């Protein structure tokens, strides 16, 4: 097999290829803020910080946060259970985010009271966010970066196999066929048509803001958003609100299906 043939046969192992789209990082943000100590009633506190991207538009993003000054990290939306006693405390502290249509990134911290141990302590949240261009991004000015080299052939870049968006207006699942023959990585974002409160009933995502699905997953009274993947399809369970209404929240759901490197 010639070098070229070998390259074509193993396209998913090369650093990047013009045949497939890749993520485009258009900015990196970070910050720190404190969420005050919660009391037993109402059982939680919140705080938020905003940063103007200057885009004047929403975009995709991935965020992580730490409550121990960077020793350990969680993805946005997760709330790591406190397992220090025989009974785990499920809701502890989390950070979530969204980017508005005006390009304002907001990090939202939520700090829950620990009823099991009758305690509530203030939490300082350190967060980092990578902003990615969306499929229907308009004309924007990306944030400056100090990266000297953007692409390095040493690395294998994520390659996007399919990406698009669809309207969510019913409670029916939406199935996207990929037929890759394996379980791919699938990412999704949601833009509610009107302002939508998260499934925990605490904080509202503004109309049109780009948000990750963690806003609508969890142990609220409504059904969770979900992504089920098999070797042929990715099935998206529609966003549901926190009041168990039969229909989901209307909006636009974006998805990206990536090629595996192996």
């Amino acid at each position, binding site marked *: 097999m010639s070098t070229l043939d070998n390259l074509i046969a193993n396209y998913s192992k090369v650093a990047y290829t013009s045949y497939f789209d890749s993520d485009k990082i258009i900015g990196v943000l970070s910050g720190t803020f404190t969420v005050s100590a919660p009391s037993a009633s109402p059982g939680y506190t919140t705080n938020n910080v905003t940063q103007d991207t200057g885009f004047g538009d929403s975009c995709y993003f991935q965020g992580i946060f730490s409550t121990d000054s960077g020793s350990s990290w969680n993805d946005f939306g997760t709330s790591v259970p406190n397992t220090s006693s025989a009974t785990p405390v499920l809701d502890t502290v989390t950070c979530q985010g969204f980017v508005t249509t005006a390009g304002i990134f907001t990090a939202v911290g939520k700090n829950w009271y620990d009823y099991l141990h009758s305690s509530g302590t203030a939490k300082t949240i350190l967060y980092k966010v990578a902003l990615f261009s969306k499929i229907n991004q308009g004309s*924007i000015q990306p944030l400056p970066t100090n990266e000297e080299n953007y692409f390095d052939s040493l690395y294998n870049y994520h390659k996007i196999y399919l990406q698009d968006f669809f309207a969510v207006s019913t409670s029916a699942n939406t199935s996207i066929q990929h037929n890759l023959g394996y379980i791919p990585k699938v990412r999704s974002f949601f833009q509610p048509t009107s302002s939508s409160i998260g499934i925990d009933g605490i904080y509202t995502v503004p109309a049109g803001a780009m948000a990750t699905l963690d806003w609508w997953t969890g142990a609220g009274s409504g059904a969770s958003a979900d992504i089920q993947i098999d070797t042929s399809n990715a099935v998206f369970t529609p966003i549901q609100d926190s009041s168990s209404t039969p229909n989901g929240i209307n909006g636009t759901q974006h998805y990206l299906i990536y090629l595996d490197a192996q």
Partner: protein
Amino acid sequence: MIDFSKAARISIASGFKGTSILTNSNSISSFFSLSPGTSINILTGNFAGPIPVTIPTVNSNAATQVQFQLSGLESYWHVINGNFVGNYSSNTYQILAFYAYNATTLTIYFIIVNQSAGTVTVPDITFNCRAYLFIAPW
């Protein structure tokens, strides 16, 4: 200004960094079997877990996605969008998933909660987990 209405249609643009994969293979994985060969009973109002599944990592700040499969209950894989809550066996029990990571280990926690008025029997479940890692841009 970058007109993404055009730039987004090309595969790469030298002005933007992509997300690169940290490991030579695409993902890393691990699994944990719940009481292999033995179903468990969970009393009314009680729960099982947290059941930790750990995956060694080689860098912090690097997980872009964690997926899991509840083999024995269903065949497809779920994405953990921050956390996961699923109802099973006609809503008699819930399975919850969370995760966190540090410089060396990604830990995924599963908790099974009895939501019925009586004891529920949870079948054998193998928790298959995998994570996609990337070189973080920060």
